[in-house]
């Protein structure tokens, strides 16, 4: 008897925990409301099945616990019941799968007007690159990366010259404007993940991966690395600030382009050559050795 009661309390506790939990998802800040809705739907259907199965089990415990000489049913199978259960389950599964696939279809089809953002990851940090006036990002190559060219942009690619470089773990995005995140890693797997945006994708060295979202809530969010990438994994954080259009364009205009960087480096080199005569100033600080 008490066994059934304890199991019943566990099920009841689980349901109550789910209803009153203080630990639930963060407020959504992107267009992926559909994901949350599908989760809620799955909770209803799945949770319903869980409770039903467990309650039926508990009922059996109360009703059919051992009694000498109890008459037990001998019926190896019940075709009709099995058929009903199979079809009901199939239907339930289909009801869950359909919205999942519809949303995935949106997830892999990026809107044409999305802003491409190149996210470059390494052990253990991030930096970002935005297209310049031509609206296109230049091609890159890992072996190009050096002090003068921290993003490894192919110098002879005309699209790359005006690219806007953000050499920081933090980036700003424009509210209500779809963003296509292009992920690139120069060493191991990483994953640019903002819980409030609900979306994520691994950055894989050797290829470029992508996903998209549309931020729709102004505010600052933390970026987490969600794919294990070595001992610094847990500390690999960054940030996103979603801004209104005015704030965003102000921020954007303050960023330097690849062209600026080259010009600055050339100027610096020229001066350092002069300086070098007096001192051996070492400017070869390599950003990738910082952790």
């Amino acid at each position: 008897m008490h066994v059934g009661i304890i199991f019943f309390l566990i099920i009841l506790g689980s349901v109550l925990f789910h209803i009153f939990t203080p630990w639930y998802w963060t407020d959504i800040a992107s267009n992926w409301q559909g994901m949350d809705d599908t989760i809620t739907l799955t909770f209803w259907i799945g949770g319903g099945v869980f409770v039903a199965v467990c309650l039926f089990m508990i009922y059996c415990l109360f009703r059919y616990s051992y009694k000498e000489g109890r008459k037990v049913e001998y019926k190896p199978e019940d075709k009709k019941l099995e058929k009903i259960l199979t079809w009901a389950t199939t239907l339930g599964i289909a009801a869950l799968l359909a919205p999942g696939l519809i949303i995935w279809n949106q997830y892999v089809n990026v809107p044409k007007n999305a802003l491409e953002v190149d996210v470059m990851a390494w052990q253990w940090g991030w930096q970002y690159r935005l297209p310049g006036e031509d609206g296109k990002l230049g091609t890159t190559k890992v072996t190009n990366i050096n002090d003068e060219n921290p993003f490894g942009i192919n110098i002879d690619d005309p699209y790359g010259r005006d690219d806007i470089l953000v050499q920081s773990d933090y980036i700003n995005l424009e509210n209500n404007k779809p963003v296509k995140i292009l992920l690139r890693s120069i060493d191991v797997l990483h994953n640019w993940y903002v819980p409030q945006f609900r979306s994520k994708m691994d950055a894989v060295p050797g290829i470029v991966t992508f996903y998209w979202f549309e931020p729709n809530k102004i505010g600052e969010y933390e970026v987490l690395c969600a794919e294990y990438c070595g001992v610094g994994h847990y500390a690999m954080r960054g940030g996103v600030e979603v801004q209104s259009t005015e704030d965003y364009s102000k921020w954007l205009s303050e960023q330097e382009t690849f062209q600026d960087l080259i010009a600055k480096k050339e100027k610096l080199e020229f001066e350092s050559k002069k300086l070098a005569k007096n001192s051996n100033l070492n400017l070869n600080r390599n950003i990738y050795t910082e952790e």
Partner: protein
Amino acid sequence: MEDSNKKEQSGSTHKIGIYLWIWGLLFVLSFFSYLVDWYQFQGMLRWSLILFFMFLKAGLIMAFFMHLYWERYALVNVLLWPMTAIVCFICLMIAEGKYTLFSRLFYFFVGG
């Protein structure tokens, strides 16, 4: 166990002719697939010929040298059905390989 083997032995063994036939056929087919390279066929023709000769050779070896042709269907089916998993793996990896190549060419070479 022993008995069943003896039974098998007393059962018919195959005529030597069939082995020699298959043996010869394998040489001929290998020669043909070598000719595919010799004449430097290219494109679909090359691939389909290579695959055709390959499967024919593999089939002959399995069917006659490995006696699968004479085995009961229970064994044959147990051996062949798992290959669907491999076929699925191959098909998906073809798609994956193409996708990787596209990603590399597009983002590292072509751009735009």
